[in-house]
């Protein structure tokens, strides 16, 4: 395995982008990343695209070839591969691109992620999201994706005394960060009472506990470390990217207050990197629901199990806290165009490690972590990146 660097990043604004199609979004993010790396088209060896459900959102499959085509790469005939693992599609595409370069198979690959969610109505969009869970043994009985996370929240409150306010504080904190990110879907701060009073979705979770439906795309360029400095003065090294799986259905697990997949992927990533959670200054974690961030910061090892709510309320995960979590605004405020999300996390980490994050810059950021989850934890990807 050889060392791999991120040498280019690009992302679109996230939000309800009615004037932009799936192909517009994919192309925009890809071109930004390629320009950032100052690449010529012929330098690109392969393309990986994270996408959950273009087939149902826009009735178009075969989207890796589509994005290669509309990015002007059709005549280069490069291999273009779509990766799907529900919400973890983008993080997994990143890992596959990393493996392709680390193995020596390719020197330079582009990893993109894209989702166009607002071409369908929001009820149908939510049904598509629910297919990340077990449609035959959970969803068919009326257990929506928010309902499954609500049951995680209820159980976390029951086992550890986590409060409704602590859970809601995740949204307050991520909106505060999102207000500092010009690419975020929501750039306004909110009060704790706003979250608590928001219309119920699945008790105890309300609208402000849920990430929005979003359109958007993100892309990164990966290159073998030995060639990276010929493209950029600020390469960012991928020190580890680990993946784990678990049962598809939440009810098949012995505990629902931890995601074993996150724990296993994190343990493996830290082992490979010879680092510990204490070495991490910033983390982009998968807060598709507020409760998900509480599980994540515990399962990744930043805080002991059961203490995630308290740590959040105490400000330990804010900019300036012990570990800055979701400086981009996270899925909650930055937005969650499913397939794009895991790649956008990498874009944020790289911006931070380059010192280019503007008003939300984490001072002296040296090591960042990205954590991307599919379904209710049936897939998790944890990647560690550092200043090279």
């Amino acid at each position: 395995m050889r060392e791999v660097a991120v040498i280019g990043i690009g992302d679109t604004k996230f939000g309800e982008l009615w004037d932009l199609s799936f192909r517009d979004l994919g192309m925009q993010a890809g071109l930004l990343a390629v320009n950032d790396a100052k690449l010529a088209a012929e330098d690109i060896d392969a393309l990986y695209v994270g996408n959950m459900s273009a087939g149902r959102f826009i009735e178009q499959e075969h989207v890796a070839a589509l994005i290669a085509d509309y990015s002007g790469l059709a005549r280069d005939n490069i291999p273009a591969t779509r990766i799907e693992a529900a919400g973890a599609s983008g993080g997994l595409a990143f890992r596959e691109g990393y493996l392709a370069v680390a193995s020596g198979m390719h020197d330079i690959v582009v990893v993109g992620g894209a989702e166009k969610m607002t071409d369908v109505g929001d009820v149908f969009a939510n049904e598509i999201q629910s297919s990340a869970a077990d449609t035959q043994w959970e969803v068919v009985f009326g257990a929506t994706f928010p309902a499954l996370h609500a049951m995680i929240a209820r159980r976390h409150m029951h086992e550890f005394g986590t409060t409704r306010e602590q859970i809601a504080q995740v949204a307050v904190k991520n909106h505060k960060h999102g207000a500092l990110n010009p690419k975020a879907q929501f750039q306004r701060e909110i009060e704790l009472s706003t979250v608590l009073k928001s219309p119920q979705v699945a008790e105890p979770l309300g609208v402000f506990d849920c990430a929005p439906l979003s359109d958007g795309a993100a892309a990164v360029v990966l290159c073998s470390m030995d060639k990276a400095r010929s493209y950029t003065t600020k390469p960012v090294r991928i020190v580890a990217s680990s993946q784990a799986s678990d049962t598809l259905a939440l009810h098949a697990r012995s505990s629902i207050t931890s995601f074993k997949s996150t724990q296993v992927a994190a343990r493996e990533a830290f082992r490979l990197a010879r680092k510990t959670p204490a070495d991490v200054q910033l983390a982009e974690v998968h807060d598709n629901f507020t409760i998900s961030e509480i599980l994540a910061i515990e399962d990744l090892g930043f805080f002991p199990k059961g203490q995630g709510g308290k740590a959040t309320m105490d400000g330990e995960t804010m900019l300036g806290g012990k570990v800055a979590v979701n400086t981009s605004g996270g899925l909650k405020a930055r937005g969650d165009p499913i397939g794009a999300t895991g790649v956008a996390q990498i874009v944020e980490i790289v911006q931070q490690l380059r010192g280019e994050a503007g008003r939300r810059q984490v001072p002296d950021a040296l090591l960042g972590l990205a954590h991307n989850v599919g379904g209710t934890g049936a897939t998790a990807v944890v990647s560690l990146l550092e200043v090279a």
Partner: protein
Amino acid sequence: MATARFWRENPSRYNLKAVRCGNCGKVFFPPRAVCSVCHRKSIGKMQCMNLKGEGEVYSYTVVHEAPSQFEVLKPYVVAMVKMDEGVMLTSQLIDSDPKDVKIGMRVKTTLRRIGEDGPGGVIYYGYKFAPMKV
């Protein structure tokens, strides 16, 4: 969508057909060919059984934003129930005021209409939970 997609699941949806690993005794619902604990040692030893249909609430929620199929039911309670055989199931909890639902409360399964295969499509049935009278 094809009707077969629903009726092929009927043994488990109607009668709670499960399997027990002949090697370690762990119960799986719906049935599986391999035990996740014993792996190869379990092949050919997964024994069919029916769950008794009784258990206790492990977690629950009240759903207010529902898919189109469940629009008329909302708000409705969804629960994860730990069955007495040790395996967990997810379904709606009915015949109970949402305010009275508690983690640990005893429930039993009851056969109900679950949905239909699109407007005017075939109706399919399965288990929901109801409180057990103590």
